[in-house]
């Protein structure tokens, strides 16, 4: 015989009670394993989703402009390609397209569609698990099921897609077209609707929402966008569909076969020719190499890269700009104002001028000087030293509105310009017969579509406000005919960049002096190298889509921890059940314990025997628990896909079982059980051997009872005082701090009530005789028979009940503070360039309906697309979307009367308007972090920023270096959740090419919400504008938290149910212990039914006391919130839960009753 053998035999000897203990272990282990598996399943499902929608696509080369489609082939041809990749597919990738069904009766629209221009090889090359059965041709489109569902279309239906016109010129430049930016693919026939599977739901945004995808032939899209043989993305397919490596990204990034052409650079030799009559042929008077960009201006990063590649003295930057008017100061007459001239900012050099004096020396201009060509000087009748006024458009626009500025400069020199022998005729250039000076150069000016490519001024279709009346005919027409875009004025580069430099760039072209015949090729080769080495600077990005997706699939929310929390009550109940059952088992075996001690075993030895037995039970229970844990996880996953789908937005979760979690859960289950058993055994350490031998396991000596009563009284008093203090504090707090204070208050009340309950039943136990002695008194006495057990039982019920009800204080409802007083939030697929708050614009856009918008305020915000960092997105966000907060929004909250957002925290600010904190930065974003405002939920749950206000963090937006932010304020439960809010200036500094506005906050009377929505959506359907009730958006966002609370409450209810079973187990034990008493009662004339009633009343009394104390304490917690309208206790659900618990209590109580009345009286009387 040894300890294990003893334990083994005891195990079987007490098989029934041990089986019930094992049940407790099964439950706790199952819940632990289940929670871990839920976490694993969420991660694995996100990972599966990523892999499914990317197929074998590993990397994606994207660009902010179109480039030659043969880049895909060139990538494949690169040496080393096959080591990392399988193939490369050219595509056109347009993520913000608006779709609508062509239907006369209904308007089914869908903004935010991803349009892919593909060829037939797309599905094979990308190894998609879904293949269309029809090949695309002509005006045909394939949709995925999600998009088809939104548009209510089926095969054979016709749809229209609205795309944003591709322009290389930055949209907010006054020289960019803002009016006609939508391109439509009309009446596309839906040839197939693919199920939402495989590449049919292709998407690179980390979101569990299915991307709304449309697929059209590449050439159709190229035609519509006038981008023949061009694409804007290459999908690079990996060798292994399930794996990726950083080496692959590095290899691709350093092996991009892109040329200077692909980077929109134009390198050409400029010959300022004239006809040399002596040689009877065209001869170059002057010649140089020009590097320009189709983007009109070089982005600063590209400018820096180019300048670094060439010697500074060789490369001459040029900034050409449009001067609306050049005139002498004070002149108003149109006849004396030169309209629409090109002014060129350039620092001349001796080699290529363009400003050279008579001795051939470069003319250096002072900052306040201007040089005119002789034509302009003659026209204005000015002389060197005269002061001129230059009118020009500010280089950046807002809401599409150009603004004119004026500067005064002194005429520093007049440079010659020679007249051509024959003017320009259509595409044929002007013909000169004499040497052309450097200033006779129309190529100093970049191409402006609709202007520089037109035959006459009458044909101009300029993107900027153009005053035809200012054109002086025929004088200005003649200049156009003879010189086209030849600049009339020159300023220093510094002056020009100061006046016309912008976020879009500081240079329109570079000039290089000619050095040889093969120079052009050399410059092109150098630029190609520059582009390849600085691809990001020229708008190219290699996105490791698979690696990013897999990294993001680690998720924002640790669901294993979350569900461990949700299942806390089940675990707690299981542990308490386990403790109760084990304690009962030990009590039942008290005599055995006493005997073992009496015969000489030490207490540790006896404890060791029980622990060995407990270990055997725990291991068996844990093994079963692991099996049931998988089932529990399956139920939770089912719940998340159905009942609690609001927490995960969409039903995409699948159960993934991982051995590690099963192992960890199982081992934890055993450890928890062993700890519980050890604690249960500790309770026996002070019980004397004689008491144990007589079957007693409690020390109820009068001294100990008195001491305990006194101690309990103190605890009750202390917790009551603490509750009062917390309640008083709570009234001075707000939001979650207030909820926390009242939660603490409720918890103190709960403790106080429980201690009071314990004291009462202990008092009842020592009470004196009464005149009236009733069944009620008997029930009270029976409950007080084992005060610890009864208090523990009531405590379990009350605690669970308290938390389930009190947690509803944290349920959220949409409030005006959550929406900041805005009733609608609108988002557009394409930017809108008009100011919707302007009365004039409304008149233009809506005509006679404009007055319907009189009471409507629209605040437009700049938008930089990125990850949705709201709690609805389960993927880990690495590049959250950004909103540029305009002055209009900031000013709105200066007014005391404005309905404000609720703040979770903010740095101190004047005027109590935290929005003002966004513009407090004094240095550039490169030197100082960008002030940012974000929703607290976004900060904590999505971005894991726990430092609150003042915390600094970095985000990598592929801008060459990470962007540093500093949290200046935190919104509380707002409609702006999911975005980083920075000042408009900072946003444009980071993303200079953002044009127009895509995010709108709309304040309108409640009754006109529908009308305003309809008006805006109709008018801006081409831009894919969609307005949504902000309360609905907020409800959706809050639904996540509320659903988590519901989950907690449901699982808490389950735990409570388990607690009810625990009470039943205790009751059964009580009945067993009292079997002789009950037999005596029957002997003295109590009918079985009466006995049964007595047992049931005792059982329900404990149950109802538990529920009552819990609810009472919880109500104190939620009361202030209920009064303030913040808490919405789900009474219906709670009534069902508690009703079910009482019902289960009654049913299981019947077990105790049955046991009580089934026991034969005679045997029980004898057995005692």
């Amino acid at each position, binding site marked *: 015989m040894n300890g294990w053998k003893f334990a083994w035999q005891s195990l079987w000897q007490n098989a029934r009670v041990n089986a019930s203990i094992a049940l407790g272990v099964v439950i706790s282990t199952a819940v632990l394993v289940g929670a871990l598996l839920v976490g694993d399943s969420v991660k694995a499902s996100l990972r599966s989703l990523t892999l499914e929608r990317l197929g074998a696509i590993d990397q994606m080369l994207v660009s902010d402009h179109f480039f030659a489609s043969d880049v895909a082939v060139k990538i494949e041809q690169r040496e080393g390609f096959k080591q990392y990749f399988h193939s490369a597919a050219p595509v056109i990738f347009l993520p913000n397209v608006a779709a609508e069904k062509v239907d006369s009766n209904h308007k089914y629209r869908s903004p935010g569609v991803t349009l892919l221009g593909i060829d037939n090889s797309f599905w094979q090359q990308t190894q998609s698990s879904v293949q269309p059965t029809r090949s695309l041709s002509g005006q045909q489109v394939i949709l995925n099921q999600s998009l088809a569902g939104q548009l209510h279309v089926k095969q054979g239906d016709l749809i229209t897609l609205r795309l944003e016109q591709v322009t290389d010129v930055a949209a907010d430049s006054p020289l960019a077209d803002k009016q006609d930016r939508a391109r439509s693919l009309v009446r596309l026939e839906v040839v197939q609707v693919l199920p939402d599977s495989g590449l049919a739901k292709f998407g690179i945004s980390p979101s569990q929402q299915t991307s709304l995808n449309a697929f059209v032939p590449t050439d159709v899209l190229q035609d519509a966008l006038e981008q023949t043989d061009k694409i804007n993305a290459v999908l690079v397919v990996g060798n292994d569909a399930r794996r990726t490596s950083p080496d692959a990204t590095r290899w691709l990034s350093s092996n991009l076969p892109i040329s200077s052409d692909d980077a929109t650079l134009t390198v050409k030799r400029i010959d300022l020719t004239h006809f040399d009559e002596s040689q009877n042929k065209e001869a170059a008077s002057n010649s140089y190499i020009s590097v320009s960009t189709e983007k009109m201006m070089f982005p600063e990063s590209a400018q820096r890269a180019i300048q670094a590649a060439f010697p500074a003295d060789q490369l001459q930057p040029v900034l050409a700009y449009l001067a609306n008017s050049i005139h002498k100061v004070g002149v108003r007459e149109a006849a004396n104002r030169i309209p629409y001239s090109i002014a060129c900012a350039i620092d001349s050099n001796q080699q290529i001028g363009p400003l050279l004096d008579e001795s051939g020396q470069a003319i250096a201009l002072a900052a306040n000087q201007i040089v005119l060509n002789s034509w302009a000087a003659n026209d204005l009748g000015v002389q060197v030293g005269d002061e001129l006024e230059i009118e020009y458009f500010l280089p950046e626009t807002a809401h599409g509105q150009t603004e004119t500025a004026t500067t005064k400069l002194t005429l520093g020199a007049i440079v010659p310009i020679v007249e051509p022998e024959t003017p320009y005729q259509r595409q044929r250039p002007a013909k000169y017969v004499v040497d052309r000076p450097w200033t006779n150069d129309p190529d100093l000016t970049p191409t402006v579509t609709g202007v520089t490519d037109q035959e006459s001024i009458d044909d101009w279709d300029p993107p900027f406000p153009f005053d035809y009346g200012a054109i002086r005919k025929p004088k200005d027409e003649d200049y156009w005919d003879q010189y086209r875009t030849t600049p009339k004025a020159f300023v220093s580069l510094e002056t020009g960049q100061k006046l016309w430099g912008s976020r879009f760039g500081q240079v329109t072209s570079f000039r290089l002096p000619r050095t040889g015949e093969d120079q052009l090729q050399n410059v092109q080769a150098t630029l190609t190298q520059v582009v390849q080495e600085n691809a990001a600077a020229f708008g190219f990005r290699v996105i490791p889509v698979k690696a990013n997706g897999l990294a993001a699939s680690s998720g924002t929310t640790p669901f294993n921890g979350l569900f461990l929390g949700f299942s806390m009550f089940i675990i707690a109940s299981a542990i308490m059940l386990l403790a109760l059952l084990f304690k009962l088992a030990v009590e039942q075996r008290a005599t055995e314990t006493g005997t073992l001690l009496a015969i000489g075993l030490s207490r540790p030895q006896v404890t060791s025997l029980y622990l060995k037995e407990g270990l055997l039970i725990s291991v068996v229970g844990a093994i079963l628990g692991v099996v049931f844990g998988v089932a529990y996880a399956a139920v939770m996953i089912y719940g998340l896909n159905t009942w609690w789908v609001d927490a995960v937005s969409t039903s995409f979760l699948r159960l993934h079982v991982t051995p590690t979690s099963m192992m960890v859960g199982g081992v934890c289950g055993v450890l928890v059980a062993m700890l519980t058993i050890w604690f249960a055994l500790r309770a026996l350490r002070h019980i004397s051997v004689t008491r144990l031998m007589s079957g007693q396991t409690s020390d109820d000596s009068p001294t100990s009872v008195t001491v305990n009563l006194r101690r309990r009284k103190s605890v009750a008093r202390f917790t009551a005082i603490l509750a009062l203090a917390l309640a008083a504090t709570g009234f001075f707090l707000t939001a979650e701090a207030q909820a926390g204070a009242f939660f603490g208050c409720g918890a103190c009340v709960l403790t106080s009530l429980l201690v009071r309950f314990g004291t009462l039943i202990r008092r009842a136990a020592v009470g004196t*005789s009464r005149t009236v002695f009733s069944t009620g008194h008997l029930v009270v006495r029976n409950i007080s028979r084992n005060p610890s057990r009864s208090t523990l039982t009531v405590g379990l019920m009350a605690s669970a009940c308290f938390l389930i009800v009190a947690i509803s204080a944290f349920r959220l409802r949409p409030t005006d503070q959550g929406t900041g007083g805005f009733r609608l939030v609108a988002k557009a697929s394409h930017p809108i360039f008009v100011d919707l708050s302007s009365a004039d614009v409304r008149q233009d856009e809506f005509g006679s309906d404009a007055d319907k918008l009189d009471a409507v305020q629209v605040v437009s915000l700049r938008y930089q697309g990125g990850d949705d960092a709201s709690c609805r997105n389960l993927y880990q966000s690495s590049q959250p979307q950004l909103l540029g907060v305009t002055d209009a929004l900031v000013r709105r909250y200066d007014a005391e009367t404005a309905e404000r957002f609720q703040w979770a925290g903010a740095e101190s600010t004047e005027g109590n308007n935290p929005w003002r904190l966004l513009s407090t930065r004094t240095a550039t974003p490169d030197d100082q972090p960008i002030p940012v405002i974000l929703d607290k939920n976004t900060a904590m749950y999505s971005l894991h920023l726990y430092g609150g206000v003042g915390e600094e963090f970095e985000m990598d937006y592929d801008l060459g270096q990470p962007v540093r932010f500093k949290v200046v304020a935190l919104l509380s439960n707002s409609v702006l959740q999911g975005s980083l809010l920075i000042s408009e200036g900072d946003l444009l500094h980071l993303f200079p090419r953002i044009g127009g506005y895509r995010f709108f906050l709309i304040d309108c009377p409640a009754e006109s919400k529908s009308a305003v929505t309809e008006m805006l959506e109709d008018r801006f359907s081409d831009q894919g504008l969609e307005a949504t009730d902000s309360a609905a958006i907020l409800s959706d966002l809050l639904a996540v938290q509320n659903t988590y609370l519901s989950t907690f409450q449901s699982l808490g209810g389950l735990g409570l149910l388990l607690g009810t079973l625990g009470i039943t187990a205790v009751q059964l034990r009580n009945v067993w212990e009292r079997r002789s*008493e009950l037999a*005596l009662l029957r002997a003295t004339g109590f009918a079985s039914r009466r006995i049964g009633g007595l047992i049931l009343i005792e059982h329900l009394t404990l149950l109802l006391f538990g529920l009552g104390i819990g609810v009472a304490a919880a109500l104190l917690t939620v009361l202030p919130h209920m009064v303030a309208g913040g808490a919405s206790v789900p009474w219906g659900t709670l009534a069902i839960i508690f009703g079910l618990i009482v019902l289960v209590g009654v049913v299981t109580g019947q077990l105790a009753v049955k046991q009580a009345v089934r026991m034969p009286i*005679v045997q029980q009387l004898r057995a005692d």
Partner: protein
Amino acid sequence: MSDLVLKDVGKSFPTQTEPLQILENVSLEMKRGQNLAILGPSGSGKSTLLQIVGTLDSPTTGSIQLCGTNPFELDERALAAFRNKNIGFVFQDHHLLKQLSAVENVLIPRLAEGPTNAQDLDRAKSLLDQVGLGHRLDHRPGELSGGERQRVSIARALMNRPSLLLADEPTGNLDQVNAELIGQLLIDIQQKAEPATMLMVVTHSPTLAACMQRTYQLNHRRLVKQTESKQ
């Protein structure tokens, strides 16, 4: 006409082979105010007989009439009420409810009919006074000695003024002094305080049995009268 009539009462228990006969043709009659003792070796069926008389168990054969009623013809509820009204038990182990005080324990039989009243309390106190525990009304069983507990159980048995007081080895767990005291107490109370009560005592104690008006010996399943005093 006797108040208690046992006629050819037999009791057997089924076993795997053949029924185990415990009692056979036991007949007995008693009138109010009478008392008797049943003696016999362990396992002879004394307690079984007492439990049958007390309606806690039913006879296999024969019949019992108590105060003109055959209790085994009653349904469970009526039987409980009958027992409550007519029978009082004193067990070898007192079977007191440890969560109740002495007086509350005594009141238990009254509780079967509903809440107790002041008269009930007075009677309980009076009974406890009679058994010598008037000063320990509010004491719990844990605070009483073995003899005191048995006295409480006697008081409890008499609470409803039963027709029949059954005592199963009432002194079995007590020392000789206490046993004699309890035995005498039983007889005194029955004779003086509750003269309308019949007292049937099952005991090993010849001393206690000797105090009774009649003694019977249960031997070989049959009840044989041994002595009868002339009182």
